[in-house]
């Protein structure tokens, strides 16, 4: 156990910090769930890519810089420290990318990863269907082989980034006689293919965060199949592990929020405003929890770098960060008092900042990427071995 960064790690941090200080936008970009914001974020990703920082743990040939996972953590820390924009292509770079790296063909890696790293192609995820949410194995959209193509019919929903993305990945039933987890194939679909209709759905903040996607005899070449035919579930599980686990929610995100919360607390106390006495403890607990999440991630990374795997314990992470994120934002709103409900731009709102937006975003945490109820089932059954029936 050695909790000091190596000189190389310190040097990398310094380099990332300098680059971000020089290049990160000074002003907040518009939401990437608007068309304007989507393109602004793509422009930022292009810059990031040109600077060599788009996806530091990826191999250089795919647009990364061949760094290891620890350096990825360091980069994330610096990224949040710089207040740099959210990653518009997170479905691609954090979820699908690692999966392609694991199970994709050399051609697929060469075709998809570089354009993903540069956000030339932005990805939507197509997991859920109207009747396949928590019960994801109940997928009904079909992809039937016909010559060199799959012919896709059916519907996906809650496709994050679906409104503006270029590509979608998801599972489709390639064996029409199959049931549940079997007979599914993981397919990559260009969203401009004829037969696709995208209906954006506004989320709780009134922005087009996701979409319903309808498939009507959509033809996709069979080389867009990722992993083996009929083995889509296994491929997806690898992706879901990444989503719940390491990549999607790096600890820096929560340490950043925790630090802002501590500052908000100190500022509110200093202002002489009434602060409920219990908030002293709640804020400290939030900070401690963000530390715990960081420590835990460093431990996971240490294990992974020593050859370990991430498994069902990703479900622990999902519950922990999603509850922490909600708690931090709720606490901030309590500190803001009567101003908590004001939208930015109201004169009385002052510097309440993005806590309300963040709160609404945090509320989705216990729902997406597998509800926390599903995660608790996984912990009980797969980690603790409690009976399924």
């Amino acid at each position: 156990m050695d909790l000091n960064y190596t000189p190389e790690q310190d040097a990398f941090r310094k380099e990332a910090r300098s680059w971000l200080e020089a290049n990160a936008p000074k002003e907040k970009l518009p939401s990437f769930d608007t068309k304007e914001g989507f393109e602004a974020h793509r422009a930022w990703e292009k810059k990031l890519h040109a600077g060599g920082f788009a996806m530091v743990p990826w191999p250089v040939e795919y647009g990364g810089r061949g760094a290891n996972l620890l350096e990825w953590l360091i980069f994330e820390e610096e990224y949040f420290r710089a207040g740099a924009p959210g990653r518009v292509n997170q479905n691609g770079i954090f979820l699908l990318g690692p999966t392609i790296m694991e199970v994709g063909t050399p051609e697929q890696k060469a075709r998809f990863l570089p354009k993903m790293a540069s956000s030339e192609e932005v990805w939507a995820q197509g997991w859920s269907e109207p009747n396949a949410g928590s019960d994801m194995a109940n997928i009904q959209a079909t992809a039937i082989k016909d010559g060199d193509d799959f012919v896709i019919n059916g519907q996906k929903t809650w496709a994050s980034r679906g409104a503006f993305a270029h590509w979608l990945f998801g599972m489709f039933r390639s064996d029409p006689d199959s049931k549940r987890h079997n007979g599914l194939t993981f397919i990559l679909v260009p969203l401009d293919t004829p037969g696709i209709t995208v209906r954006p759905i506004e989320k709780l903040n009134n922005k087009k965060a996701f979409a319903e996607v309808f498939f009507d005899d959509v033809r996709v070449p069979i080389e867009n199949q990722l992993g083996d035919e009929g083995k889509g579930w296994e491929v997806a599980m690898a992706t879901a592990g990444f989503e719940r686990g390491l990549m999607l929610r790096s600890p820096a995100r929560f340490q950043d929020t925790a630090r802002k919360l501590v500052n908000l607390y100190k500022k509110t106390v200093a202002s002489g405003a009434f602060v409920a006495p219990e908030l002293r403890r709640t804020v400290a607990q939030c900070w401690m929890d963000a530390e715990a999440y960081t420590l835990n991630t460093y431990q996971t990374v240490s294990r992974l770098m020593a050859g370990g795997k991430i498994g069902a314990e990703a479900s622990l992470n999902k519950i922990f960060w999603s509850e922490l994120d909600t708690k931090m934002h709720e606490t901030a709103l309590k500190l803001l008092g009567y101003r908590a409900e004001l939208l930015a731009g109201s004169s009385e709102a002052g510097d309440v900042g993005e806590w309300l937006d963040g709160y609404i975003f945090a509320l989705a945490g216990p729902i997406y990427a597998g509800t926390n109820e599903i995660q608790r089932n996984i912990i009980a059954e797969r980690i603790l071995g409690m009976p399924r029936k």
Partner: protein
Amino acid sequence: MEFDFTEDQRALQEAVRDFLKGECPVEFVRAQWDTENGRSKEFWAKFAEIGVPGLLVPEEYGGLGMNEVDLTLVMIEIGRAGLAEPVVPTAAVGAPLIRDCGNVALASEWLPKIATGDAIIAVAQPTSPLVPEAECADLLILRSGDGLYAVPAADARITPQKSNDPSQKLATVEFDAKDDQCIARGADADRLEGMALDRGALAAAAQQLGACDQLIAMSVEYTTERKQFGVPIGSFQAVKHQVANIKVALEYARSHVDRAAYSVANDTTSRSVDVSSAKIAAGEAALQGSSTSLQVHGALGYTWEQDLHVWMRRAWTLDLAWGETAWHRERVAGALFEDTLPAEHFGFSPPA
């Protein structure tokens, strides 16, 4: 000792519920989001026909001459419907304040108009600089220094402040305090303002009960219809028990609110503590109702088009209205630990 509502009171509640079912479906609430000031004169006129704005207005001024116990049942229904018209400042707070301030000219001018639906009142909250309904008000009751002022809309400078709840209309207000608009000073002003705060908080708490009940109803309905793994998701204990927990919180909050209604109507010595207890308990139930309902609705509840958030946002904004939970908690704790709590509370009694 009899702690229950009368049959007449229950009948009034049902009548209002039926009225709102017809006149205030969720489509109406949503439609108001896009209108200029978010309020409907047509609705308000119909509401006046059944007597709601003038519920606390004495009969000699054309009102129903009822009290806060009656009004509380009405406010519950308003919360259930998600209605955000200016009932609280006009009917629950403004009318009795004008009635009680001892200014007969003011009462004679405004109370009849309140009862007929021809006047909207806004009242400043002592706990926040945000004045709900200032934009649509005809008369504003505002504080300046040690005085309370009745200010016609034309004399007030109003700056709208946008709430996260599109139904909620907030503003900051500036005005020049004029002696002829002063309706109370010093201890009188404090007393009126204190009563206004308790009336406002009680009305907010009652709405929170109604909103919470509605959130439970929507959750039960959705989880009964929605199937996953071949069964309704409402049959899973993880879902069932979460919803059951809201129900527990709601029913005990209801007891606090009922008691607070009695205490306000009868101006008991425990009034403030009872109102604060009600506001805290109802607020927590409604917030728990919000987050739990969202969780059991899953992604669907997280969309703008689903109606769940109409009530979630009501719960959020009501929690901040007329004293946030933290403020009310401090009021209860203060009374409890500084021994200012009256012995009047029934039940287990301290040695005389």
